[in-house]
């Protein structure tokens, strides 16, 4: 059941990202080019996603457990620390440089294997650097 939920959720996510143009790095870069030739498409994507997820959270609050598991597994951390802000700032730099974030990069692996592949391999290397070096401190 969980595997099926994972597969279906991933499939819909991948189709949505591709339909919305988010697997096109120049379009994402256009959204971040606020002081240049701004492309507001990404705002519609996030708006659409939140339009569904807002009510989903309201439903979640009334559920004792999810449909396919015995308990919810949700992040409960509240504190704003340097890791969160520094990590998000770093992520934004890479996002602006390449026009790609993790979801679109993975969703583009089948349609643009070379470019998306280079990005994803480097991203996995970055995640390993984090778990080996930074996470131990």
């Amino acid at each position, binding site marked *: 059941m969980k595997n*099926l939920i994972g*597969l279906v959720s991933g499939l819909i996510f991948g189709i949505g990202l591709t339909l919305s143009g988010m697997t096109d790095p120049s379009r994402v870069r256009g959204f971040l080019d606020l002081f240049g030739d701004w492309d507001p498409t990404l705002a519609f994507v996030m708006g659409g996603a939140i339009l569904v*997820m807002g009510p989903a959270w309201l439903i979640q609050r009334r559920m004792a457990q999810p449909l396919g598991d015995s308990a919810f597994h949700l992040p409960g951390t509240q504190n704003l620390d340097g890791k969160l802000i520094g990590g998000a700032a770093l992520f934004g730099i890479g996002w602006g440089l390449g026009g790609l974030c993790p979801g679109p990069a993975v969703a*583009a692996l089948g349609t643009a294997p070379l470019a998306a592949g280079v990005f994803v391999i480097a991203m996995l290397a970055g995640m390993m650097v984090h778990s080996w070096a930074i996470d131990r401190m």
Partner: protein
Amino acid sequence: MIIPGFPDAQPIQGLVGGLMIGLSAAIMLLGAGRIAGVSGVLARATGIAKSSMPRSMSIYFVVGLVLGGLAFALAFGPVAASYPPSLSLLAAAGLIVGIGTRLGSGCTSGHGVCGLSRLSRRSVVATATFMVSGIVTVAVVNALGGGW
């Protein structure tokens, strides 16, 4: 549909694609009780990080994500995409995104979609931070003549 002043924007495709992303995240939340955050799920699927998500489920999600992109291309033809001019720039960007998303515990999907809609304080701050940081990065690259 064209928004006056923004001839290249695709608001309808963006909105419908966004609704699908929301549906996907809602299935993950209400079905499996978990956050559809791609950086976290990917780190779990590759064994780089541990999480509460069973590894097989994370692999199924990642495979679905790739198949979703492929299915769209099979149904509607080639996907328009222009990438940065150099692979080394892409690699550098990927490396930074990998470190940043792990350090900051999430990316556009986990913080930007799931966290913002939950009104999570951490996600609101993270999303504002990576938006500003991305906008500044593009402005600086453009000012240095490196735009693409």
